[in-house]
C-alpha cells in the first residue's frame, strides 16, 4: 500500500484502488509528522528531535567504521522496506528460498517504505540489520563513500558472471568497489492503449517531430495527448531526465546530476525548451494531480499516452485492462544519442557496515544475485524485470518481456533524478520543475536555471 509514493516505491501491489492510493500517499509521510506536534516551537521540533537523538550526539565524537563489514556466521536479520502486501510476499518467497539454499536463518524486519527511507541515515549509523533493501545509483554511492556500507567485492567474485557490465557498473561505489546487489529494475517509457491507437490509426512515433505531430493529432481527436501529474514532485524529474538524456546524452546528464556540470548551461535551456514544446499537450494542472489520477486518465482512455515507469503505470492498471496496455521507448531527439539511454531504476540490497554476521549475510547475497532468486521474487511481481542474464523469462507477461528488451537495448541506463543526484539537489530541482510547469516562458526558464545553478553550488560546493 505504501508503494505508490516514489518512483522507487511503486513496485507494488495488485493495482491499488483510488482510496488506497490516496491513503498510501498520505500515511507514509504521517509517520514523520508525529514527533512534537503539540509543542508550539513546532518548527523546531525536527531540529530538536535530531539534536537529542543519541546516535547523532554520539556522532559528534567522530569515529569511522570499517567498510569490510562484520565477520561471523549464524542467523541474520534483513531490514526490508517492502511493506506492501504483495512485495512483502515476493520478498518472503525470496528469503525462504535463500534459507533453503544457504542454510542461513533469516529474520525479516519490515518497516514502512517511507519511514525506512526517512530514517536511513540514523539506521545505518545505529544498529542496522545484517542486510537491507536499498536503491542503486548515487543514493547508494553517497553512503558507501562515507563508510556506511560494507564492500561486496568477494560476493561479486561469485555472482559477477550472472550480470552484464551495465548492472555491474550500477552496483559499484564511486571508489570502483561493489556495494550493492540488485534484484530487479524497470523502464521509464511512453505508455498507450493499443485499442486507442488502433481505433484512431496512430503509430508509435520514432522521432521528436512524429511525437509532437501525434500529440497534436490526439488533441484534435479530443484526447488528452499526454497524461501528466507532478503533485508528488518526483514524476516531473522523469521527463527532465529523459529529455536531457536524449538531447545531451548520458555523460552530460550524470555530470549535471552530480554537480559537475552547470544548470545554467545552454544545454539545459534546450531541455526546458523542448519540454515547453510538448507542455501544451500534457494534461493541464499537473502540479495538483497525483500520478495515480493521471494513470487513471490513460486507463479510462481519456488520455492517449503517459510517460512513466512500468512499476507505476502497469502496476496501477486493473488486471482486465492490462492486455490493452503497451508502450514505446521515448522518441529520438538528437541523432547523436538516438534512443541509447533511459531511466531504468534498480532496487536491491546493501550490507550496512555495522550489521552483524557478515559472512552469513554475504552467503545470502550470493544466492540473491542469481537468476533463480530473481525468479522467486518476480513470481508475484508483474511490472519489474530481473537483471540476471541467466534468468528464465518464460513467466514474464508481455510488458515484462518488452521491458527486458528495451532495457537491454540501451547503451547505458540512468537510475532516476532523485537516485542519481544529491537528495537536496533533487528536491531543489523538483520544486523548480513545478515552477516551470506553472510558467514555461523563456524568462522563467532562465530564472529557474539560475536558481538551480546557485543552489547546486551551495549543495555540492
Amino acid at each position, binding site marked *: 500500500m505504501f508503494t505508490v509514493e516514489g518512483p522507487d516505491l511503486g513496485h507494488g501491489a495488485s493495482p491499488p484502488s483510488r482510496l488506497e492510493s*490516496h491513503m498510501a500517499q498520505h500515511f507514509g*509521510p504521517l509517520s514523520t509528522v508525529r514527533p512534537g506536534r503539540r509543542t508550539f516551537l513546532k518548527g523546531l521540533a525536527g531540529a530538536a528531535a535530531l539534536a537529542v537523538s543519541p546516535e547523532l550526539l554520539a556522532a559528534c565524537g567522530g569515529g569511522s567504521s570499517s567498510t569490510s563489514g562484520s565477520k561471523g556466521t549464524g542467523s541474520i536479520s534483513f531490514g526490508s522496506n517492502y511493506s506492501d502486501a504483495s512485495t512483502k510476499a515476493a520478498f518472503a518467497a525470496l528469503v525462504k528460498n535463500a534459507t533453503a539454499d544457504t542454510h542461513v536463518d533469516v529474520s525479516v524486519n519490515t518497516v514502512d517504505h517511507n519511514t525506512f527511507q526517512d530514517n536511513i541515515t540514523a539506521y545505518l549509523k545505529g544498529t542496522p540489520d545484517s542486510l537491507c533493501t536499498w536503491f542503486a545509483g548515487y543514493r547508494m554511492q553517497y553512503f558507501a563513500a562515507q563508510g556506511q556500507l560494507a564492500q561486496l567485492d568477494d560476493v561479486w567474485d561469485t555472482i559477477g558472471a550472472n550480470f552484464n557490465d551495465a548492472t555491474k557498473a550500477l552496483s559499484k561505489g564511486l571508489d570502483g568497489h561493489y556495494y550493492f546487489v540488485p534484484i530487479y529494475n524497470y523502464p521509464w517509457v511512453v505508455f498507450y492503449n493499443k485499442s486507442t491507437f488502433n481505433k484512431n490509426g496512430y503509430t508509435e512515433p520514432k522521432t521528436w517531430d512524429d511525437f509532437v505531430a501525434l500529440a497534436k493529432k490526439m488533441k484534435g481527436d479530443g484526447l488528452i495527448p499526454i497524461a501528466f501529474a507532478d503533485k508528488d514532485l518526483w514524476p516531473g524529474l522523469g521527463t527532465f531526465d529523459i529529455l536531457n538524456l536524449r538531447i545531451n546524452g548520458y555523460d552530460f546528464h550524470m555530470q549535471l546530476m552530480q554537480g559537475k556540470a552547470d544548470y545554467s548551461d545552454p544545454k539545459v535551456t534546450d531541455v526546458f525548451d523542448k519540454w515547453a514544446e510538448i507542455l501544451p499537450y500534457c494534461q493541464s494542472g499537473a502540479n*495538483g494531480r497525483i500520478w495515480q*489520477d493521471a494513470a487513471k486518465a490513460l486507463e479510462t482512455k481519456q488520455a492517449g499516452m503517459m510517460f512513466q515507469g512500468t512499476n507505476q503505470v502497469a502496476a496501477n492498471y486493473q488486471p482486465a485492462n492490462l492486455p490493452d496496455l503497451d508502450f514505446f521507448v521515448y522518441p529520438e531527439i538528437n541523432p547523436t544519442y538516438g534512443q541509447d539511454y533511459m531511466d531504468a531504476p534498480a532496487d536491491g540490497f546493501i550490507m550496512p557496515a555495522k550489521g552483524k554476521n557478515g559472512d552469513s549475510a554475504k552467503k545470502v547475497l550470493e544466492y540473491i544475485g542469481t537468476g533463480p532468486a530473481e525468479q522467486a521474487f518476480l513470481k508475484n511481481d508483474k511490472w519489474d524485470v530481473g537483471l540476471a542474464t541467466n534468468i528464465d523469462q518464460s513467466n514474464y507477461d508481455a510488458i515484462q518481456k518488452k521491458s527486458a528488451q528495451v532495457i537491454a537495448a540501451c547503451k547505458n541506463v540512468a537510475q532516476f533524478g532523485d537516485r542519481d543526484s544529491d537528495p*537536496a539537489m533533487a528536491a531543489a530541482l523538483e520544486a523548480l520543475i*513545478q515552477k516551470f510547469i*506553472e510558467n514555461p516562458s523563456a524568462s522563467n526558464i532562465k530564472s529557474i536555471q539560475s*536558481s538551480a545553478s546557485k543552489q547546486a553550488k551551495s549543495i555540492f560546493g
Partner: protein
Amino acid sequence: MTVAVSPPQSGKKAVAEGPPPRRSRRSRRVRVLSRRDKVVLVLMLGIPLMLDVAFIWVPALTSVLFSFTRWNGIGSLHPFTACPPPPAPSILRNGCYTGLDNYHQAVTIYPQFWPAVEHNVIWLVVFIVIATPLGMLFAVIIDRGIRGSRIYQSVLFLPVMLSLALIGIVWEFMYSQNYGLVNSVLGRTSGPGAIDWLGNPHINLWAVLVAATWRQAGYVMVLYLAGLKAVEASLREAAAIDGASDWQTFWRVVFPVLRPINAIILVVTVIESLRAFDLVYIINKGSNGLELLSVLVTNNIVGEISRIGFGSALGVVLLVISLVPICFFLYQNFRREEAS
C-alpha cells in the same frame, strides 16, 4: 510555564509551615527547611528544571550551534573548525563551521524561504481576521440558545477533534481536480475549466486556509463559549435595564469581561499559525505555493536530504519569530501578576 512557577510557591508554603521561630535570624533560615522540605524542594524544582533543560534548552541551543555548521548527519562534527574553502570536494566540507553561510543562503538563494515567511504571515492574518471573528460569531449565536444549538455546537466542534493530518486528507478528496466534490458541484472536473485547487500556486494557499479556518473557527468557538458561559447574567440584565441594545451589550459589556479569554485566543492563534504544518505537509509536503517555515525545517532535516546545518538555521529563524509573541505574552502575564 506554570510548572516553573509553582515550585517556589510550595517552597513558601513549606516556610510557613515550618517550626516556630526561636533562634537568631540567620540560623532560623537554615532550620526552617527540614530535611524533608529540602528533598521536596529539590525534587519539585529539579525535575521540571531537568526536563526543561533536556527537552527545550539543550535541543534549542544545539540547533543554534548546528545552524553555523555544514553537516549531513553522517561523519564527525567539528562545529569549531572552519570548512575548507569551496573548491574542496563536498565530502570534505562536512561537519564543519561555516559561519553565517546557512542564513545567507536561506535569504538569498533558497527560493522557498521568502514565500514561506510570506505564507506564515498570511496564515496568521487570515486566522486573526477571519477564523477568530467567525468562531466568535458562532459562539455568540449558539450562546443565545437558538433552536438546535447543541447540534450546531457539535457540528462546528467536530473538525477540532480531527487531527490536522486527517483534515488534510479529507479536504484533498474534496479539492481533487478531476474527481473531487468541489469541482463536481461546480461542474468543472475536466477540460481547461477544471480548477486546480491544490496545484495552482495562486489559489492553493487560500484553498488550504479554508480547511484550516474550518477547524480553527470551531476551536475559537469552544473557547469563547466557555468564556460566555462564565459571564454573569446580572451584567446583561443590568445592561438591558439601562436600555442597551444587543449590539451594545456585547461590545460594551460582555466583550470587555472576556478579556482573559481574548488574550488566550490571541496566543493560541499566533501559535497555531506558526506551527501550521500538518495540513500542507499532507497535501504536497509544503511545495509549490504552500511553503511554510516549519515544513522547510522538516524537509531539510528529516529524510535523505539531511542538510542538518541549513535546516537548523531555518529552525532558528522560526524560533526567533516565535519568541516575539511568546515574550510579549509572558511580559503581559508577569506584569498582570505583579499588579494583582
